[in-house]
């Protein structure tokens, strides 16, 4: 069953043709990795899913993108509501200048939730989901900036999870982290896929190989190959994919 479907998507930034006729389906409760050299369009494509490109000057999209069979670029779509369902984690941890507790409940407070008991429950559950609860449960009032980079990134994921999305978009979420934090986050992604559909953009090919079920290779705005990760890394069908993953690119 597909959580996200894309049909013949093209993206232009002014005259620049950033995404070229890409059709790509993402299965529910799976991890899909987008790989490719810088500027290949993988982040642009990821950001289409929660309409993060809408405000970029000159942005123009054609083609269809469906989330649970609803066209997300339909004029009736409420963008904030869409982003509640399709959360995003960025390259650099971006906690708010607030306490750990307030970071997690931020989205819920905006939605008007005031019930302290419910908020406490969400904080505990979200932090447990990202395996941060044991590390911070006695310091929930401490500033989020006091946490390590890896902890901050897990806090940002907890903040995203608190509003109960069903899709998580991750744009190079470990590129600013040390190997231990990276390993923890990879374990977390593996756990989270039981309940979420995850798409991750990564430059780390071994990471894509370790954590994803499917891998999509982008090059110059085209989707060159989408296949099971095991196939991509053992027997890619396209020569361009092979050249890229074996480091013989160009």
């Amino acid at each position, binding site marked *: 069953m597909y959580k996200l479907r894309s049909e013949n998507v093209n993206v232009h930034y002014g005259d620049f043709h950033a995404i070229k006729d890409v059709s790509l389906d993402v299965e529910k409760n799976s991890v899909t990795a987008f790989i490719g050299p810088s500027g290949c369009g993988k982040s642009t494509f990821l950001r289409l899913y929660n309409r993060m490109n809408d405000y970029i000057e000159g942005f123009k999209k054609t083609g269809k993108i469906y989330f649970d069979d609803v066209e997300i670029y339909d004029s009736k779509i409420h963008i904030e509501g869409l982003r509640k369902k399709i959360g995003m984690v960025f390259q650099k941890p971006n906690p708010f200048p607030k306490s750990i507790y307030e970071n997690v409940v931020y989205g819920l407070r905006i939605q008007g939730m005031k019930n302290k008991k419910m908020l406490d429950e969400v904080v505990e559950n979200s932090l447990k989901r990202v395996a941060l609860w044991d590390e911070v449960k006695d310091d929930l009032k401490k500033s989020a900036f006091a946490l390590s980079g890896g902890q901050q990134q897990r806090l940002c994921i907890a903040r995203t999870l608190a509003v109960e999305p069903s899709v998580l978009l991750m744009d190079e979420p470990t590129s600013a982290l040390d190997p231990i934090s990276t390993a923890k986050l990879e374990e977390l992604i593996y756990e989270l896929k039981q309940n979420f559909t995850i798409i991750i953009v990564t430059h780390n*090919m*071994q990471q894509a*190989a370790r954590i994803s079920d499917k891998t999509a290779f982008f090059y110059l705005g085209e989707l060159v190959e989408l296949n099971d990760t095991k196939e991509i*890394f*053992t*027997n*890619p069908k396209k020569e361009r*994919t*092979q050249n890229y*993953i*074996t*480091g*013989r690119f160009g």
Partner: protein
Amino acid sequence: MTHLETELQQLKSELLTMWGLVASQMSKSLEALVNNDKELASEVVITEKRINSFELKIDRDCENIIALYNPVAVDLRFVLAVMKINTNIERIGDIARSTAKFVVKSTSSYDQYILEKTRLLEIYEEACDLVEDSRESFEKENPDIARKIFMRDELLDEINKGAPKVIAEIIRDNPANIEQCLDILSTIRRLERSGDQCKNIAEEIIFYIEAKVLKHLPKSQKRNS
């Protein structure tokens, strides 16, 4: 050329050197057997140690490449194939040494009549050719040569299958030759086994080049897949 490519080239070169040495061991052990040349046979026995060293070195290099470079796709298949081919070639080297040992300890030349009846020289030459051809297939990355090996191995199977009956007849006719007959039977069995090793190698070459797994398939499917 990337650093990994340089390492893989070096690995290939090492394996080909070892392979050439094993091919030479096979032909020398055959020559020693035909001419009852004990000196040449002793050389084969001693050289086997070099092959063992090669095997260990290539195993270690494969391990290092996997650990340090995380090869994927064709590079990974290449390293995996090299590891298995390495083991198979080393075993063929053992077969050459075993034959040479028989020559070293034999008290007389092999009886020409027994050699002809058992087709020992025929199977030996074919086994040597298979080693050479599998090496060529790997060196030139040519899976067509590898595919032909599946067919050619049949001759080795046929000679091996017929050998016990022929040997039994010879022993019945002339029990004095029993020791030589048993040596020859044992050698034929080993050579048949070397054909199987070459088949395994051919499978690995096709796996590495075409990403196809041919293990345990019937011969007809192996040829055509």
